[in-house]
């Protein structure tokens, strides 16, 4: 039995639907299509799958997906809470399941009609009286009820303390747009953006403007996790070894509104996730060649660069200034265009991009791809993993 999660699992298949503003079908169908595609990409059949995991926010039950896809006996199923923070949390679940033998092949899936169905931009309200609703009740009466408004609150303070400006956020958006322009799956495929476009776009929640905010997307993605030993025997599209994976929630954690900590210009929960990933993998920031950094909003990319030690606290704007996030830069990131420019599938489209980077099949493939960092949502209990090559 393993004592850490180092090198205990690999991603052997990825699948996804098209990304659109109007899928025209149910979230369940999107989940099924993505799952079936991932199984096929792994060189498996539905019979092989015995574990399933997704987000608590997903509307498609494991057993419904299983039944529709033709998956039979399940020995492991679970869910991970906290929105986009779950993006690698679900991977953590899958890795633990295969490492402990609870399951052999775990499907991780997520689908949403994020534009044509329920839109997160419309904010939180109503629902049963849970501790979560009581939490939101401290903010809804003031009108602070959308993800953009919560993230803008942290962004404003971060800008005040570090001197970061909207122009620094624009560099993140433009780097990612440059990537999306080459990615046929991206919403902004072949649609470049200028600095002026970014700076003159309407304000959503000052200091965030339109292009600082992610897409609202319909679509589904899935991937298959198994042990490295089984991965070596598969005729799959290429395996990405999971060098480490971890979750974290910090002191005085709230969901998106941790405004009561001594400082709100850093991410204690992501610091905790980073620390574990370095400890488990034995790697350092210098070993990471490229990254998929969760980007529901542009500013959150900066804080994660600091959490993972690519630069010192408060210095992310200097780190990215000379194109570090672009191809040929120190850390080519969000090479699919990210959630700002490809699609917003709650971070799970980033997991698939992470696998493509390891396989060498990204639309914007960097020369070096030994190790890829993939992170999940920010401002909430969250998670991250490091992918590497399977020998």
């Amino acid at each position, binding site marked *: 039995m393993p004592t850490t999660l180092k090198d205990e699992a690999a991603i052997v298949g990825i699948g996804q639907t098209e990304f659109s*503003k*109007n*899928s*025209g*079908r149910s979230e369940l169908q999107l989940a099924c299509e993505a799952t079936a595609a991932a199984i096929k990409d792994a060189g498996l059949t539905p019979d092989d799958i015995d574990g399933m995991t997704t987000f608590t926010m997903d509307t498609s039950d494991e057993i419904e997906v299983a039944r529709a896809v033709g998956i039979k006996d399940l020995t492991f199923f679970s869910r991970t809470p906290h929105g986009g923070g779950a993006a690698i949390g679900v991977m953590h679940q899958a890795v633990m399941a295969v490492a402990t033998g609870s399951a052999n092949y775990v499907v991780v899936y997520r689908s949403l009609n994020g*534009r*044509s169905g329920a839109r997160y*931009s*419309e*904010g939180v*309200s109503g629902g049963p*009286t849970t*501790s979560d*609703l*009581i*939490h*939101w*009740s*401290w*903010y*809804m*009466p*003031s*009108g*602070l*009820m*959308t993800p*953009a*408004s919560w993230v*803008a*609150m*942290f962004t*404003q*303070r971060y800008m*005040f303390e570090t001197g970061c400006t909207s122009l620094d956020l624009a560099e993140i958006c433009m780097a990612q747009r440059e990537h999306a322009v080459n990615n046929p799956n991206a919403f902004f495929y072949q649609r470049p953006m200028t600095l002026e476009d970014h700076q003159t776009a*309407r*304000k*959503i*929640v*000052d*200091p965030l403007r339109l292009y600082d905010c992610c897409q609202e997307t319909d679509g589904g993605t899935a991937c298959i996790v198994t042990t490295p030993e089984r991965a070596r025997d598969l005729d799959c599209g290429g395996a990405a070894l999971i060098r480490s994976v971890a979750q974290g929630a910090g002191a005085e954690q709230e969901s998106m*509104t941790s*405004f*009561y900590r001594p400082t*709100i210009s850093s991410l204690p929960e992501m610091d905790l996730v980073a620390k574990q990933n370095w400890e488990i993998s034995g790697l350092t920031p210098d070993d990471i060649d490229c990254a998929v950094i969760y980007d529901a909003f542009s500013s959150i990319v900066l804080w994660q660069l600091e959490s993972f030690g690519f630069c010192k606290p408060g210095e992310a704007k200097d780190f990215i200034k000379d194109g570090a996030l672009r191809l040929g830069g120190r850390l080519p990131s969000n090479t699919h265009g990210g959630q700002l420019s490809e699609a917003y599938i709650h971070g799970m489209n980033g997991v698939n991009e992470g696998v493509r980077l390891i396989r060498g099949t990204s639309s914007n493939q960097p020369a070096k791809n030994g190790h890829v960092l993939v992170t999940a949502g920010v401002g909430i209990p969250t998670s991250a993993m490091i992918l590497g090559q399977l020998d």
Partner: protein
Amino acid sequence: MGLQGKEREAFEKTLEPYVGIEIGIKEIGRDEINQAMIRHWCEALDNELPIYTDAEAAADSMHGEIVAPPTMLQAWILPGMEMATGEPDPNDKQKELHRLFDDVGYTGVVATNTEQEYNRYLKLGDRVKAVTVIETISEQKATGLGIGYFINTKTTFTDQNDEVVGSMTFRVLKFEPSQQPAAAPTDDSGAPAKPTRIRPALAHDNQWWWEGVQADKFLIQRCEDCGVLRHPPRPMCGECQSIRWDSVEATGQGEVYSYVVIHYPEVPGYEYPLAVAVVDLEEPGLRFVTNVVDCDPEDVHIGMKVEAEVREMDPDFKMVVFKPIA
């Protein structure tokens, strides 16, 4: 969720013949531009600009004579009472097009944009006619109202000498209503109630605090055992795990620690742009999320000194808000 796949392709094929054609109904002004209709319009809309009704003032103006208000342009060709009682014109291609949409479930229709350009002001005695062309039909779009298509029409207005006096583009959305529209809340008289802020959900752990606000008190929860203050309230003290607590009134003095100005989306019941701040309270280690009132949202800044007030923000609903200290 709109038509998909082959069905959608087949439907969109049936739309193609409509793009670029005239809608085919007669749009001829039944009367010359005349003082009576102008006066009627100006009275209804309370438009007191003298150039429309005062011959003397108009003569002295740059126009030199009475002119019609430019936004009346379309009024000169609308058919009036016939719109309420008349049979639909069988030649009306626009209606025919709308029926195609109705038949496949895109029954909703809403005008979203209009644009008018005026080449010259119309004068008494002018006579206008118009021709309307269906300019474009968009691809299928997801909108706030539902899945649908935007139809653009362009109307060109000419005068008795066939000179173009103005034009109008009109954009309507034909959509599949995404769900039954929720009945708007009504008050006792049956009139629609004014929208209000979203109220907090109340339960054991927070109800006492909101009741305090309704009684004009800004309270802070305090551990009865170790005396630590905490906000937002929680059922247990994180320092000593005591579940015994009481409360004290806050001093209400503070300083803006961070803030945002919300522009989008505009939720009914709130005024936008809307300033929301995290305020460092005078009580050490405590912060409070609040609206900053009585100042321009653009003037809110980090470090701004503010003080609390319990204010009735909606009928029967008080909140703790902060305002600048003069």
